Each structure stands twice: as C-alpha cells, then as structure tokens.
C-alpha cells in the first residue's frame, strides 16, 4: 500500500477512496461499478477522482438497475474481473438480494470450486441523519446468515482502507459495509493493521467487555471513557469470519459482556455473539451477556425520535455500569 503510507488518508471516506485506488492500481482486473460512482464521484463523494484516474472502462456508471448490475458484477467476477460493486444504501439489498444470496454466495459451492467469485459488495448504512425508514437500516445480520459471504464493517480510518484492500484481494464474495456517519472522521495512524477476520481490542479494560462494530465503536469508546468502571472495547471488524477467540479471551478476564450494535436488536447479529459467548463461557460469566441494539421499530424520520431509539454512548455507559453492579 505504498501510496497510502506516503500520504496517510485523513478521513474515513478518503481512506475508502484510497483503498479502492490502491486495489485498482495493484490489479488491472479490479473495476468499480455502481450508480454515479464514476463521473459524479459518488453521492457521498467517496469515489471522487477515480473515474478521472482509471477511466470509464474501469469505473462504470450504471442505470438504476441494481438487480442487473449487481448480477452482472457477479458474472464478471466469475470470468476474470474483480469487481467492486456499490449498493448505494444497504436498504437497497431489497432490490438485488438474489444476486448476492443465491448467486454470489452459492456458485462457488454449487460448482464444487469450479467457479470463483472474487467480488466486493460495497455498501453503506448509518442512521442518525433523518434519512427515514428506507435509508437507515443496518442489515448485516441478514447477510451474515448467508453461507458463502464474508461481512466486514470497518470502524476506523485504517480499516476503511485496509479492509477494502483485503476484501478485494480475497477470492470470495465480501460485503464491505461503510457507515456514513463516519465518512468525515479523521484518523490516519489510529491503529495497527490487522488482517481480515481478526477482531481488534480497541481499548483495554478489566470490568466489562464491549463487543461492537461500525459507528458504534466510536460511541462505545466514548461511553467507555465516561464509565465509572473499566471497559474493554472490541472492534469486531468482521462478522464473517467471526473472531470469537478475541472476544472470549477478553470476556474470560472481565466475566461481563455487552454487545452493542446500531441494527435492530431482535434477531440481530448481537444474538449470535451472545449465544456463543453464553455457551462457551457459561461457568465464567458473572452476569448474563447483555445486548444493546435498536428497538424493533422502523427508523422514524424525525431526528428527535431517531435519537430516542438509536443506541447512544449514554446508554452504553449505563449498561456497563449496570453489569458491574449486577455481579
């Protein structure tokens, strides 16, 4: 990643851009496909400059045809290209799930290895911007449930870059989930690099282990700083593969685990982590694993309501302290 170490990207969105550029520079077969990712530079300006730099043959603007172009990207991945295909909002998997779930995730398996699908589904989520119920969903649990997909969710500037590059290098379909509330976040040399599939201990602590990802990492770190107890925060980085070892190692020490995610709590990814930790550390846990996610309601438009239902630092702090009080 020489180009990135020369001039460390300052913000999360720039790091994604740099990651795409590095991947495209390193391998001619990497192409970027999506609505307005090209000449327009992306509706959140994340892909700005790539069209000029790599040309329209490698940065392809599409019609509003997700089923078509996501499917085409899967077909391209089977035949020599290594596409990064953008699904503008994660909510839009509603119009292209088949290509992800029934095609990309299964064709390698169904062909017993004859077909390979090196593809990255770039998408973004992030409530808290009054984007309404159809543009605010965090749906990573749905995708993590599908065998054959990897799911990564960068929470830091370093990972925004590194996980993008790793996802492109990975010979499998990888869903790469950005959080738009992090786009402006500055970082740079914030953390040490780690491979795809490893969780990171983002903050050391002794009393409670907070397991989280995406935008909730920042929220959890803030919460940890404010807490009257010592909180260890783990940035999971990927749901598939799930680095349970790092979680268990921490929980073994603290005996208390809180899983925090922006997504709806019910049937969310936190349930899997709670179930696993509960099973593995039955005799070690001092209190039951607790989860903090959004309540089971569509995201309301009004910012006041939105703030009322999104997990926030305050609630995380309170939950950590409560866990210590409980046992």
């Amino acid at each position, binding site marked *: 990643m020489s180009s990135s170490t020369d001039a460390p990207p300052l913000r999360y969105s720039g790091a994604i851009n740099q990651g795409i550029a590095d991947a495209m520079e390193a391998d001619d077969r990497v192409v970027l496909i999506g609505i307005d990712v090209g000449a327009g530079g992306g509706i959140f300006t994340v892909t700005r400059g790539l069209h000029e730099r790599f040309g329209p043959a490698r940065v392809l603007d599409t019609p509003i045809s997700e089923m078509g172009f996501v499917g085409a990207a899967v077909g391209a991945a089977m035949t020599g290209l290594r596409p990064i295909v953008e699904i503008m909002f994660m909510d839009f998997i509603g119009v292209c799930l088949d290509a992800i779930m029934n095609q990309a995730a299964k064709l390698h398996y169904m062909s017993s290895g004859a077909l390979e699908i090196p593809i990255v589904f770039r998408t973004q989520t992030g409530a808290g911007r009054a984007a309404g119920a159809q543009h605010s969903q965090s749906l990573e649990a749905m995708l993590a449930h599908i065998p054959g997909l990897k799911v990564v969710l960068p929470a830091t500037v370093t990972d925004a870059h590194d996980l993008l590059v790793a996802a492109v290098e990975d010979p499998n379909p990888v869903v790469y989930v950005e959080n738009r509330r992090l786009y402006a976040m500055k970082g740079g040399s914030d953390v040490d690099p780690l491979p795809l599939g490893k969780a990171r201990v983002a903050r050391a602590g002794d009393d409670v282990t907070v397991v989280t990802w995406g935008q909730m990492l920042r929220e959890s770190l803030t919460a940890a700083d404010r807490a009257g107890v010592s909180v260890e925060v783990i940035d999971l980085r990927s749901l598939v593969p799930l680095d349970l070892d790092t979680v268990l190692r921490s929980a073994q020490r603290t005996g208390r685990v809180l899983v925090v995610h922006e997504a709806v709590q019910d049937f969310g990814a936190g349930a899997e982590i709670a179930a696993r930790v509960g099973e593995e550390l039955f005799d070690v846990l001092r209190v039951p694993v607790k989860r903090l996610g959004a309540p089971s309601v569509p995201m309301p*438009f009004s910012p006041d*309501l939105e703030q009322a239902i999104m997990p926030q630092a305050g609630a995380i702090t309170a939950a950590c302290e409560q866990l210590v009080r409980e046992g």
Partner: protein
Amino acid sequence: MPPTSVSSPAPPASLADLHATMALIRAFETRVSTLYRDGDIPGFVHTSLGQEAVAAGVCAALEHDDYLTTTHRGHGHVLAKGADLDGMMAELFGRAAGLCRGKGGSMHVADPSVGILGANAIVGAGIPLAVGAGLSSKLLRQGRVAVAFFGEGAVNQGAFHEAANLAAIWDLPVILLCEDNRYAEFTDSTKMTRVASVCERAAAYGIWARDVYGNDVAAVHAITREAVERCRAGQGPALIEAATYRWHGHYEGDDQPYKPDAEADEWRTDRDPLVVAEAALVAEGGVTAAELSAVRARATERVDRAVAAARAAAVPAEQEAFQHVFVD
C-alpha cells in the same frame, strides 16, 4: 369483470387554477430549499422546482379519491393531489403535527384521505404499489384511477417492467406517469438507454402511451384527462411521458457540475412552466400580470404561514417512535 360504471368526467380545470397550484408548489419548494440550506429541515430533500406543471396538470385531472404513489421528489404531486399544506410542511420539519406525525418525512409523505399512498424512497417501488391500488379499484369496483409518478431513471428498474406488464395483462385503471427531467441524480439519463423515449418502451407492454411537453400545464392536463377517461372506461392502463427539467440538484446541496449551463438557463427562463402559463393567461386576456403576481404572493404567504406553524409545532413525543409498528 364488467367495467366500473363511468360517471361523467369533471370539466377540465381552468388554466388559472392550474397556475395557482403551480404557484403553490413553486412557493413551497423555493422555501423548502432555503429551509434545508439553513438546517431547518433535516434528512434528504429533493425539490421539484421547474417540474410544477406535471404535478398540477396531472392531479387536476384526478378525483379526490383517486390513488397516487410518488417518489423522493414528490412534494409537488402531494400538494397538487390535495394534501394539507400545513401538514406537509410540519412533516418535513419532523413535527408531531406533520401528516405522518414526523415519522415519514420528505421522502415518505402519505395521506390516504386524499388517495396519497405515499412517496417512496426506493426508486421504482411505488409503481407496483399503484398497480395494486388499481387492482383494488377494479376488483372492489371503486371506480378509482391509480397514478404512479416516477422519473425517467426509474424506467430502468425491474419494478417498472414487471408492474407495467401486470397493469397491462390485468387491464387495470393505472396511469404510469413518467416525469422525464433528464437527469437521474448526476447522470444524464439519455446515456442509460439506447432508445429515445419511454413511450417506445411502453410498446413492449402493449400499453397506450403518449408523450407530452411537461412544462405546458394545459397539455399535461389534457392528456391526463384522456388517460383517466380510458381508465374509468375500463380500457386499461396508460403511460404518459412528460418532458420537463429539474432546476435544482438531485438533492438540495448538489451544485450540479454535470449540467451544461446553457441548457439549465433555458429551462429556468423561457421554459419556466409558470412563466409559460402566465404568458398564456395574459394572452388569453381577462387577467393581468399584476393579478398573477398576487397569486404567487398569496402562495408565498400560505407557505410562510405553514412554515411558522411548523416551527411552532411540537416535536413528536418519544413514545411516538414505538407506535404503529403494528396495528393493534
């Protein structure tokens, strides 16, 4: 099934009335644009400035209880269909007094009391919904027409294709109203298809289709009336392609580097649908430029009042967030 009994159609709206509707939409969108810039309105906002003639001309051809679905760019349609102005504005502010108590917002305004089944933030998704409304109308003999507004960009969505075909084979009273404002986000839509018009695509479904100059409100109105009549007579769906232009960026805040200046200028001056209608009204006689200014001024006043009311309105109580997940 026999066609629903046809009541004699209402007389066409006067140009003056159409103009008044356009003036209201213009005032609304102009104000929303600055309110958004100033941070008074949250979320994403997509205005329909420059496209007022389509909303006004189409909706004036509809009855109060006809159905309508629209898109992220639906303020004009919703106002023209008869949604309460104050309720609209309060909704954009996210207040409890909003049409959807602040839970929908700009992209999701709905008001079934006047047939509005909702704006929709998923491109193309409103089209099958309107087809379903047309199905209800037909099977329950409601005698209502269902209009789906969508942009030319949405025509490339599978939902358009599937829904258009369904409306055709089921002979439903559905009007597919394609508002071709030339751009889909930052993209020149002519680059996203090889065919020159959406009407050509309607042929793939065997649907009656017409194009119309979308900035001529009277023409839009007339062609819609024809389509509505066909629908009410049980002659099945229609597609109308209205050529217009989006003045502002895709969303408020987009400064549109991708548009040629001359093109944008022309559409904002000579082709301004309000200016066109005003010229016609003055030429027709019986109304003066000053009277037309007064119409615009009154619209602005109404919007001002709506803004003041929205500002003063309460934000929704926290428990509102937990209501309406399910019908109890």
